[in-house]
């Protein structure tokens, strides 16, 4: 993998900065399994790209390569920022730290001063709506609140590129929708470049500006859909025929790609 630090110069005036660029990326594990093959993917500032696909199609691997946790075996991966937020499948809070200390962790690991740390943490806690729970330990929080604390922790980095590995997969439908709305609001405010992994088609369509459908074995991109709905997005958009039609199209593409 070659991580070139230089941002690609915008071709036209309107084109936003490219933060993540995969070119012909391939990933073969030591045991010979081909997890990804010929993946081309670009995520720009202000774009929220969601990857949907069946389990085991390599979508998590895609994200791990983007974060630098793993290296691709072939192809080029360019990342134009060092401010990368990563939200894991589970909240990964440290049980011995209260919400505030958990949210401060990343800034602490980056050796930020105490004042900066607590300032950033307060802002982030406020942004995810956890104000008043700063002193709570993780075990005192519900699953949704833990996930929000985890989100706040990543927000303290002011990420330009935000990676989400099925963060709401374990939550119930109601909590999940609420968190989707919250994430959309944060996205509307911060306009980072988002790459979101999920296996829920409606979540994918609702959250993103672009939906990428993957098929498994080897993981490859089958189709890409642009989502035309404006941001900030009205929650009721989920009940419109246009939304349903797009969900239907994505679902069909998923089924066709899944042999």
């Amino acid at each position, binding site marked *: 993998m070659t991580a070139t630090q230089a941002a690609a110069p915008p071709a036209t005036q309107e084109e936003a900065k490219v933060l993540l660029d995969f070119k012909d990326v391939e990933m073969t594990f030591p045991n010979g399994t081909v997890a990804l093959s010929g993946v081309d993917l670009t995520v720009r500032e202000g774009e929220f790209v969601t990857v949907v696909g069946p389990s085991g199609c390599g979508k998590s691997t895609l994200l791990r390569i983007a974060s630098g*946790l793993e290296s691709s075996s072939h192809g080029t991966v360019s990342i134009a920022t060092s401010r990368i937020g990563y939200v894991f499948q*589970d909240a*990964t809070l440290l*049980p011995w730290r209260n919400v505030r200390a958990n949210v401060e*962790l*990343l800034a602490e*690991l980056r050796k930020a001063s105490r004042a900066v740390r607590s300032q950033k943490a307060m802002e982030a806690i406020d942004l995810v709506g956890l104000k008043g729970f700063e002193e709570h330990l993780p*075990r005192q929080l519900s699953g949704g609140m833990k996930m929000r604390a985890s989100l706040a922790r990543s927000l303290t980095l002011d990420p330009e590129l935000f990676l989400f590995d099925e963060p709401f997969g374990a939550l119930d439908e109601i909590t999940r929708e609420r968190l989707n709305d919250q994430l959309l609001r944060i996205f509307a405010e911060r306009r980072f470049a988002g790459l979101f992994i999920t296996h829920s088609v409606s979540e994918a369509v609702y959250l993103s500006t672009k939906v990428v459908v993957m098929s498994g074995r080897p993981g490859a991109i089958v189709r890409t859909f642009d989502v035309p709905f404006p941001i900030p997005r009205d929650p009721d958009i989920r009940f419109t025929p246009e939304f349903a039609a797009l969900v239907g199209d994505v679902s069909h593409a998923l089924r066709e790609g899944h042999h």
Partner: protein
Amino acid sequence: MSATINPEKAPTGTASGPSGPPIKRTMPAVRARRPRPAIWVPPMLVFLVLLGLWYAVSYLVLDEKRRFLMPPPDQVVTKGFLDPDVLGEILASLGQTAAVALAGLAAAIVIGMAWGIAMSQARWIERSLFPYAVILQCIPILALVPLIGFWFGFDFFSRTVVCVMIALFPVVSNTLFGLQSADRSQLELFRLQNASRWTVLTKLQLPAALPAVFAGMRISAGLAVVGAIVGDFFFRRGTPGIGSLISNYQSRVESAELFAAIITASLFGVVIFWLFGSISKFVVGAWYDVDAR
């Protein structure tokens, strides 16, 4: 709890049904009241049964000439615990043994944790050192004790060495296990910020290891008391410990006093065991939801 009850009461899914709040209020009260007798009654019953068995052996199995083999509990109390001379002797020697046990336990914790931490740092260190932890655990320490006397003399230091050898293994293995128990995703969280090995150890692995480390310390605490008493038996120089006292009573066939000394030694072990349990609950208890199984 209310989540599983309410849907039955309010099939529409509205959580604020009129029957909701009373259920919420009564459930914790019932739960809080129940444990009190439940915790103490069963062990007390077992204690009474054991006491009855003891009396039965003393009075029904053994005739008067052989009753010294198992003097009845009341004699143990009157001749042992209520005789100020005997009690003073027992407590003084217990103090000596306790000093050895605590010194041994402290050394075992320091050495054991260092050993465990070293092994957690690299696979090859673990592979090189773990077999010796197992071997240490399997050595018949009793067979080595005379040698330890030759090497280190027959007083406090040797007693402590025996104590450490017996108490070391649980700390080593539990520290290693605990350090390796940190989640993969938590480790990756630190890795993504390029955290140093030291930072990962102090901010993630050690706190994550604490429950296991405390569990190991608790086992080691009991073993340290055993080790100190074993040391007393062999190393008679210096102030006698409770082990020497036990062997004195034994040779004088003062069985009531012997029982009193043994019970005192066991109680001391129980107290240390309980103490570490409480410290563990105090430190770690708040982090994890004990009720949620």
